[in-house]
């Protein structure tokens, strides 16, 4: 564990990622305090103005403050990310444990299901589901969860399979009773690390999918601010107000980048092979 | 008639943990057609020595000294000139044939490309020669085998293919790195016998920790410990009259002599012990052994030892 922490600390880019995420979380929590204006208050005579003293990042097509909307939008993106990853991980881990531990027919069925889900390009499937369910943030989240659970199922199943080999040697001797309990004792601690890595790296595709679907008009409905939706709104006014197509995109990119950096760093710190590659320098 | 002369060779690797002093002041001489065995435990630097002669070490390695081959110092050659030496004049049979053969190229091709390169033959002729080489190392149905891929060969066959690859361009010196490692006893014997036959007209540096195999083939044996040569003599002399305590210990650890291991572990090549490198594990160690480093001394004709029991201090 100490080894992991020192490895992690040495990876500066991962620390930058962690710092940015922390910043985003704080921004999201304190959005009401930080935002200079009401994000949904329209001011029609101040439409489409560029960055100014009153509106640091300008206004949108309804005269709303872009900065304020970005700050409140952080709440949505981060919340969606956490909820979707959380639920997808829970579902995926549960199914993966069943699959890996019990093996046999259950394993076959679940793995075939995973394969079938992966036969669809993910955004397409999420789009179809969210589109059919109808507009609304909840529906978008459900759609993405349906698409995302598979990666967690696979990771934990892999962990279980690799520990199962070792475990049976011990099991042959002592226990036999309470094996589920012992297995969860041995397996979950081993599996926590890769799950955390996959979850961190998994935030990126979730945020990407959520903002993409919002961009297409699904998800949150106006006037709630959401980064993807803001980009879509800004599309019509590209010539007049290019700032509307810039700032929300920057926000999305920084968020995704931060999670990627953090995830990469976590993975490097936890994967011994990646470590030796650095040492060969 | 010295074919290969290694003088004062020093090889150091800078790593994150420190400077690895893999080879320190090694002097070696080989005549044409001589078979010299280089014996030592894993990690004593013998493979590094072999790779250094071929100049196959990483670019950031510190190398000092001279390696004379047919009148030229190999360490001073340009990379282009050295490439002409590799494979053609000096060939190395690397360890681990399973991983030293390219899995996506046919075995025949891996031999033929060396032939095409050094002997300028066209594709068809080179391929035919490659098949001949496989026959020479006693691989049955060489024609079909040449078209196969390494994973289709057994361990012994892979080793033989490596030997064929080394011999293909008729080099004057062969460096064989652990050719019997990992093979089971019967196969080992076959490989050793084969080697003996095919290198008859050549010089060979036989790197191994298998004394038995070395005894079969080699005229002389040099014993290496912690990056330096500690004893060197004719094969029969080494067995009959080992002088250095390490050599004696090594011999005693053979199954035929009682399997008595040498106490302790081989030293880290980063923190080399002071004085004589073996003194911490040596029964005969005295005060001077801890402080001073001994020179190589010729105790009898052709029999050299580096030990204070016989010699004097390093100048």
């Amino acid at each position, binding site marked *: 564990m100490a080894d992991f922490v020192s490895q992690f600390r040495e990876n500066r880019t991962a620390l930058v990622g962690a710092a940015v995420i922390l910043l985003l979380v704080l921004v999201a929590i304190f959005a009401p305090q930080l935002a200079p204006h009401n994000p949904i208050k329209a001011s029609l005579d101040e439409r489409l103005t560029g960055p100014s003293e009153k509106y640091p990042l300008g206004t949108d097509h309804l005269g709303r403050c872009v900065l304020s909307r970005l700050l409140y939008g952080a709440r949505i993106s981060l919340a969606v990310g956490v909820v979707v990853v959380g639920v997808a991980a829970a579902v995926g881990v549960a199914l993966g444990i069943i699959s890996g531990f019990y093996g046999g027919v259950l394993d076959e069925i679940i793995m075939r299901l995973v394969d079938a889900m992966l036969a669809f390009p993910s955004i397409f499937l999420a789009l179809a589901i969210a589109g059919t369910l109808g507009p609304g943030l909840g529906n978008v989240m459900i759609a993405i969860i349906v698409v995302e659970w598979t990666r967690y199922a696979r990771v934990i199943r892999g962990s279980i399979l690799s520990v199962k080999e070792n475990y049976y040697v011990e099991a042959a001797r002592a226990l036999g009773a309470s094996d589920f309990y012992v297995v969860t004792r041995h397996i979950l601690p081993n599996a926590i690390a890769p799950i955390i890595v996959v979850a961190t790296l998994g935030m990126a595709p979730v945020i990407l999918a959520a903002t993409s679907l919002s961009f*297409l008009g699904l998800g949150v409905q106006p006037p709630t601010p959401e980064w993807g939706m803001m980009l879509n709104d800004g599309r019509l006014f590209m010539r007049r107000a290019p700032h509307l197509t810039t700032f929300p995109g920057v926000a999305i990119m920084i968020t995704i980048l931060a999670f990627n950096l953090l995830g990469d760093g976590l993975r490097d710190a936890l994967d011994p092979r990646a470590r030796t590659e650095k040492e060969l320098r | 008639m010295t074919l290969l002369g290694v003088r004062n060779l020093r090889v150091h690797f800078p790593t994150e943990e420190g400077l690895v002093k893999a080879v320190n002041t090694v002097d070696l001489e080989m005549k044409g057609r001589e078979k010299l065995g280089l014996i030592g435990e894993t990690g004593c630097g013998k493979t590094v020595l072999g790779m250094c002669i071929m100049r196959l070490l990483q670019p950031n390695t510190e190398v000092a000294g001279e390696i004379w081959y047919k009148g030229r110092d190999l360490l001073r050659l340009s990379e282009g000139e050295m490439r002409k030496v590799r494979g053609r004049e000096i060939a190395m049979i690397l360890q681990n044939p399973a991983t030293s053969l390219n899995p996506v190229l046919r075995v025949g091709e891996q031999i033929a490309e060396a032939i095409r390169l050094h002997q300028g033959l066209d594709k068809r002729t080179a391929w035919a020669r490659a098949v001949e080489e496989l026959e020479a190392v006693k691989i049955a149905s060489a024609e079909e085998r040449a078209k196969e891929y390494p994973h289709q060969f057994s361990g012994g066959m892979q080793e033989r293919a*490596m030997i064929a690859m080394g011999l293909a361009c008729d080099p004057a010196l062969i460096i064989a790195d652990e050719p019997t490692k990992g093979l089971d006893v019967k196969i080992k014997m076959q490989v050793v016998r084969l080697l003996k036959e095919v290198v008859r007209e050549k010089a060979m540096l036989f790197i191994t920790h298998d004394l038995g195999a070395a005894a079969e083939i080699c005229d002389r044996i040099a014993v290496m410990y912690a990056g330096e040569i500690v004893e060197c003599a004719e094969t029969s002399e080494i067995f009959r009259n080992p002088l250095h305590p390490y050599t004696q210990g090594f011999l005693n650890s053979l199954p035929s002599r009682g399997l008595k291991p040498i106490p302790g572990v081989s030293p880290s090549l980063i923190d080399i012990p002071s004085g004589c490198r073996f003194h911490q594990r040596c029964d005969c160690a005295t005060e001077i052994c801890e402080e001073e480093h001994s020179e190589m001394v010729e105790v009898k004709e052709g029999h050299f030892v580096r030990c204070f029991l016989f010699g004097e201090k390093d100048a």
Partner: protein
Amino acid sequence: MLNYILKRIILLAPILLLVSLITFSILYIIPGDPAETILTGPGGAADPKAVEEFRVKMGLDRPLHIQYLKWLNNVLHGNFGYSYMTEQPVLDPILPAFRATLKLAVASMILSLLISIPVGIISAIKQYSLIDNLSMTGALLGVSMPNFWQGLLLILLFAVYLGWFPVAGYGENGDFEHLVLPAITLGTSSAAITTRLMRSSMLETIRQDYIQAARAKGLSERVVIGKHALKNALIPVVTVAGLNFGYLLDGSVVVETIFAWPGIGKLMVGSIYMRDYPMIQGCILFVALVYVAVNLVVDILYTFLDPRIRYETKAKAK
């Protein structure tokens, strides 16, 4: 090896079945009654009689499993259903739309490979050099940049400000100047991923023993890298090609929308706005089938590339 291929194809059957089930069930997650939802126009609730007629016409009144079997039977006969809007077969617009997407995907893939393979190789050979650091940073940014934003920025810069390319559209059957910006958008996103992969695969390959063995034979560095290393290093890249195609399909959804490129992504988005559920269903089924087919082809291709799979290991004594 034929065995291997046949095995793969047979294994697909249960997956395809599940795929069909999933696709079918999408229609049934519609909140409320599908017929009512469709027919509820801006004027208010739909006329119950019209709703009932519609239900019968579309077969929505039968029990679920019958509907599934009927639907599956239709699909196997090439009938992917009828659009609620146009009442024409759903496949009619899908095929030409897919052709357009394919054009875009191929162009993007070519661009992606042209960038990622050389850059990945060079980054690996000159690890930690300036080129390596730049390309890895670029790749990281590329992976983190949402492609719809990238598309918008490209339009902003090259179409709106510089006027070099049209803002959107298909032009004369997908001509070059309309293809450029969307292809760059998709291609660079894909390249970001492939470059990283090419680099790590190459790095791993160069460290193998057989590379040293090749050098020991006196081969020039160019041959060592170009022949010995490359052939091995490309294998994982080809394996990922299938996934890459899926990524391109995914990307096509937003990119086609932004650039008004009449591909299947845009068709799907359009049918969502129109609540044309059979069309949604048809699109997703079609895309899934194509994706499965592409992956199968890549799998087979992979067996050709890696002789270890092609010829099962024979353990021969001696």
